[in-house]
């Protein structure tokens, strides 16, 4: 089995402050891994480092995506190469219709892969079908990106984008926060529908609730900038009962 993502001894600083202090993580193709951890443990930082955000600097270690060193790739190159980040806090873009942005994003990736671009018709057809599965109104296509969307609508819109973009590696940063139970089910179903042997996902969450719906192959606990514990899905229940407090620095095999 090939690995989509290999993170080795990753140290990273945010505006000069070290947040990640030696993260090791291997994500094989087709698997979903969850990353759990207390607030402020560096989960979003890891997601931004993977996505290539400016100001997030790798100071030691490496990240291999499909065997390729990510260090030399800009954020947009990474995205076109198949890395997708569903933001914890999706950004509002006034004046830009959701469909206009999404079509540009979808076609940027297709072009980079040498695939034909989606024309307006095909884009609309595919969009409408996916919106339906996510229980979203078609009006979300014409509205400015995330402007005036409720918290839950923003999260759904992220999953809608992911479904349209069809990434190889999806990083979902607290997609469950702000969702009520019905929305959580719909969003989880949308994510599960995208599961296949070529697509891997890193599902970041603070609560185990999401993992009842998106069942991961493995769970890693991030604390203090390191993976302090890894295990099967039963780890989530353990955390639910005992909290993060009992975790020590000893690492089980990743």
């Amino acid at each position, binding site marked *: 089995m090939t690995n989509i993502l290999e993170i080795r001894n990753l140290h990273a600083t945010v505006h000069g402050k070290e947040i990640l202090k030696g993260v090791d993580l291997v994500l094989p193709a087709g698997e979903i891994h969850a990353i759990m951890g207390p607030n402020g443990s560096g989960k979003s930082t890891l997601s931004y480092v993977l996505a290539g955000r400016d100001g997030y600097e790798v100071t030691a270690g490496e990240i291999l995506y499909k065997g390729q060193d990510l260090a030399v790739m800009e954020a*947009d190159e990474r995205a076109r190469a198949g890395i997708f980040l569903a933001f914890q806090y999706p*950004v509002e*873009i006034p004046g830009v219709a959701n469909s206009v942005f999404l079509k540009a994003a979808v076609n940027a990736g297709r072009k980079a892969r040498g695939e034909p671009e989606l024309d307006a018709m095909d884009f609309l057809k595919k969009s409408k079908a996916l919106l339906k599965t996510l229980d979203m109104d078609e009006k979300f296509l014409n509205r400015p990106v995330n402007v005036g969307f409720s918290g839950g609508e923003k999260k759904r819109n992220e999953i809608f984008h992911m479904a349209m973009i069809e990434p190889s590696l999806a990083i979902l940063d607290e997609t469950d926060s702000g969702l009520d139970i019905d929305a959580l089910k719909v969003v989880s179903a949308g994510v599960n529908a995208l599961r296949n042997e070529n697509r891997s996902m890193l599902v970041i969450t603070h609560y185990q609730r999401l993992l009842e719906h998106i069942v991961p192959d493995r769970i890693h606990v991030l604390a203090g900038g390191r993976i302090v514990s890894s295990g099967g899905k039963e780890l989530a229940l353990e955390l639910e009962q005992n909290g993060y407090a009992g975790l020590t620095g000893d690492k089980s095999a990743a």
Partner: protein
Amino acid sequence: MMTTPATDNPTARAHAEAFAGLVSSLPGDATARQDALTRFKAAGLPTRRVEEWKFTGLDALSRKVFAPAAPAITGSPSRAQIEAIAGVPGAIHAVFINGSFDASLSDALPAGVALLSGASVTPTATGEGRGQSLIALNAAFMRDGVVIDVADGARIEQPLALVFLAGGDGAAVHTRNVVRLGSGAALQVVEIHASLNAAGATFSNAVTEAVIGAGARLTHARIAAEGKSALHHSHAAVSIGEGGEYVSFALSVGGELTRQESDVRFAAPGGTARLYGAYLGRGRQHMDHTTRVRHDHPGCATEELFKGALDGEAHGVFQGLIHVAPHAIKTDARQRNVNLLLSDRAVADAKPELEILADDVKCSHGATVGDLDADEIFYLRARGLSPDAARRLLLTGYVEDLIGRLDDAAIAAAIKARTDAWLGEEQP
């Protein structure tokens, strides 16, 4: 000394000298024109020492002589070109070449729309005040324009596109429009100011007076899209009747120096003014939007939003004064100015001002100057857009967010065509 004596300025002198020979060929009352010229001479051209002009200098009017333009010039565009220049779908077009009406390029004017040259409008001192001597100059030399009377209750569906084309090096063009809306009437007017020859240095000085009746609604767009060497000054003097509404969009995308002024007053309670503007500059362009709104009656609302995008060494100016008189309670006035500096040599000056003398009002104002938002850029890049594509999409959205506030589709389309063209042009 607040002003330059008119005789010290070559452009002012050229006008004064041309007056006697021209006045008999200009419509309306010659004595009123003479009075206007006297007022202009007494005031002189505004200088930066006048508070209202501290960010914008008219040095260009002394570096070069601009004299009242000959009424007709050669090289007129075709009718198809006129429609492309106007860009207002389904409009009735009235075309003015160097300030004179051109019937062959225009549509038949509907009932209620007359020409200034045929209507014997007497120049008044409307809108004149401190720093406003260009309006007096306009009153002395205005050659043509439209005089529109919309009857009570009449709602004109077709937008009116007033296309003002200027050409000839050193030509000064003075036009004036008068718009009167009866109670409950509605009208959409777009002024498009463009150059016949993109390279020629012209000076256009356009004034529009509007009186909006009770419950009437006027949408008024001004598009300043002249060539690189053009100077442009326009002034809208607007009075809003009870429950009436004025929706304005002033766009600057052309010219070497552009100043668009709005002077709005509420003549009765319950009126609404929505003033929007965009200035998109690059190279060494200077663009000034100056607005003044007077709330002299209770229960009126003003919404102002002006956005600048400045590249190269462009200089943008926004000055906005909202005055709320002591008895103008329940005033709701919001004013915002946003500037994007796309280069580190571009400059934006903002002077938002509220003068609130009444209690029980809701007023706010604010101005920002900044770069494109880093979070927004990252969001777009993280979905695969190149830095350049992300920047362009954000800029488009920045302008679109403003245009989207217009309810009139044809006017929005005309403005969008101009802003899209600006956004599509390569950086110099």
